[in-house]
């Protein structure tokens, strides 16, 4: 990862750009580009609820969508804290993302489509079945080879890069839903009469009580 990209990621993780002095933490925002033409324009309705497919045509075939759902759920399955990624529309978000007419999204489109093809072929090669139909141990056998790019064998490097990108898209899509925000432990976005700072149990854990 490029240094600036790494910083951008870190700061995005730490805080939204708008938090800090207008530009502040957004170390590297989207590079300048000409008018996108097919995008939502510079004055979109900010109050409307948007759904994937509202603004630009989507890409996935039914088979790609089903495979995406299966892989999303391998990455983010249901547990006691929240539902699986496919239950909250993450595959549609990934389709929206790779179909978007903005710089960089075309690259993700190439990576995701090629990666899905590879995954399906690898599943059939190893287990003579499509990925969506594999049992958990079989899915894990493949994903274990891909999940950490620095450890991936040379023949899996490219697939590992796809997996990393796909996991990020799955996480970004999931944790921005109401269910995902609850799952990760975000309790804000509600109006309060007062802001009381961290509760005593937090201060105690930090040794600040």
């Amino acid at each position, binding site marked *: 990862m490029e*240094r600036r990209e790494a*910083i951008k*990621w*870190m700061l*995005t*993780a*730490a805080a*939204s*750009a*708008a*938090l800090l*002095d*207008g*530009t*502040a*933490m*957004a*170390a590297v925002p*989207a590079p*300048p*580009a*000409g008018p*996108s033409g097919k*995008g*939502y324009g*510079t*004055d*979109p309705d*900010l*109050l409307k609820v*948007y759904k994937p497919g509202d603004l630009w045509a989507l890409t996935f075939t039914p088979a790609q969508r089903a495979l995406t759902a299966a892989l999303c759920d391998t*990455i*983010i*399955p249901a547990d006691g804290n929240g539902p699986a990624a496919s239950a909250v529309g993450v595959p549609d978000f990934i389709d929206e*993302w790779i179909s*978007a007419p*903005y710089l960089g999204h075309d690259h993700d489109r190439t990576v995701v489509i090629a990666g899905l093809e590879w995954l399906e072929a690898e599943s059939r090669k190893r287990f003579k079945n499509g990925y969506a139909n594999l049992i958990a141990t079989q899915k*894990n056998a493949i994903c274990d080879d891909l999940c950490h790019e620095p*450890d991936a064998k040379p023949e899996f490097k490219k697939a590992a890069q796809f997996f*990393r990108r796909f996991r990020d898209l799955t*996480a*970004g899509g999931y*944790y*921005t839903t109401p269910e995902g*925000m609850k*799952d*990760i432990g975000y*309790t*804000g*976005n509600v*109006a*309060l009469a007062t*802001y009381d*700072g*961290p*509760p005593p*149990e*937090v201060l105690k854990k*930090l040794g*600040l009580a």
Partner: protein
Amino acid sequence: MALLTSRKTQPSYDVIVVGSGAAGGQTAYTCAMEGAKVLMLEAGRNYDPVTETPMFQPHGQAPLRGRDTPDKPFGFYDATIDGGWEVPGEPYTSASSDPERKFWWWRARMLGGRTNHWGRISLRNGPYDFKPRARDGLGFDWPINYEDVAPYYDKVEMLIGVYGSNEGLENTPDSPPGCLQPPPRMRAGELFARERGRKLGLPIVPIHRAVLSTRQDADTLPQKIHPQNPRAQKILAESMRSRAACFWATPCGRGCSIKANYQSTTVHLPPALATGNLDILPNAMAREVKTDDSGKATAVVYIDKATGQESTVRGRVIVLAASSAESVRILLNSKSPRFPNGLANSSGLVGKYIMDTVGAGLGGQVPALENLPLHNEDGAGGNHVYVPWWLYQEQLAGKLGFARGYHIEFGTGRQMPTYGTATGMDWLTRGSYGRKFKEEARRYYGSFVGFAGRGEMIPNEDSFCEIDPTVKDKWGIPVLRFHWKWSEHETRQAAHMQKTFADLIAAMGGKLRVPPDKDGAKAIEPGGKIIHEVGGTIMGADARKSVTNQWCQTWDVKNLFVTDGGPFCSNADKNPTLTIMALAWRSGDYILDELRKGNL
């Protein structure tokens, strides 16, 4: 008088103000509240934060989960519309193809301009900041002192509402009693940084931001702000009563429908309109200022964007508040036989000495902040704390290798998840997926910290703008061409920021994913990226060496003023907006006084 939806302007005005942001809003407010008839020209559309702000929308309702795109460079829900570093049809150019010598020019073509989305950080310049050359021999001294501006800082803080504390720190002025609102409590990561930062000597204190932590005192503040003017007091009191206190949710960058933070569109313009003395003409792209045979400014020529037609409005006083570079552009495009090099440019300095703020950032992950008990850290929708520059004495003694200071802004906490949440965690998780990944997402959420330095740039001969000899925008108006260069004072400062942030993250027991950059030229953000563009029409005590006097009045044309950041002759690390407003108010008072005396 009101918001004009078509070209129904009056035959003439006392004051024409070009621009509607911090400078234009303050100038129009000051003049209209005291009875002057004002016309405001705004290049963008009308914008109403009360009805247009996406306050509680989660990112899941936005296209692409709200991520930044070329159409919305700070993300879908950022308040900026029709703006960014690129505005379709309105280009600017760079004299150099070297990325390090490119200037990024942010514009917001909307009523209220950049005040709709800004970070609301409202810091006073200190006494040193008005006399930097006297202190270290570099740059320029202002023709005014801190004491000249202090009463206006007081008034602006009372008017717009600023939270913060008085800490008695060097060159970091305290406000008199009654000016500031109480600061919000610190977040967990901020408290932890303060505790661990002590041994580094970093004073982590409440920041000052233009957000109402309590409702304004509408019974007493208006008398302090408009002591001789009962009507203005009444109008302002009503405006203050219409503003709610912060309800500790939603980021300020989206704007604020309950008017808890300052934006020109909710704080300056409504009371100014309520006087009946202000007309606002949106979609009016100012092109040039016209002068008469005596050399006085008489009118502003603008393009009505709805029709593409050229039109003219007349006024006794013309105030440019279009953003420092846009005001430069208007002056340089206002050529006539009397002013062949552009208006107010006998010094040849219009466009010279443009400055931005030095910016660099570093982030880390802090294990102590993992798995904290769930709690709400939205807070005031922005920074609660900062580190004011703390090495004045070491710097003066020549120990640092760069001449001016910086402050540190914080990013910590359990903020509303974005499309970047729980991404890029391989370096911590070794690539987990499945239930383990979900556990780790919960574990690490809220444990990331980011620090951003914001530092002073010294004006230099290589950073300026001029009219591009060939390129015009879609309205046919010649565009700006920028020249840019950081000096070693800035790049060394950026390297110092990197080391400080790495030390602070280490003191918190945190981990860095990328090492700090020792090369300041690599760490520093491009010019313009911090959107603190000032200079270009610098003020001074000598007409040969400056464009305006201490009143933001151009030396060459006495009824022509520039009240945006243009007259800044230095750019302290303190974010410029509060000072822009204070100087615009001071200039407005002078304009009113001179109008009464018949001097303009």
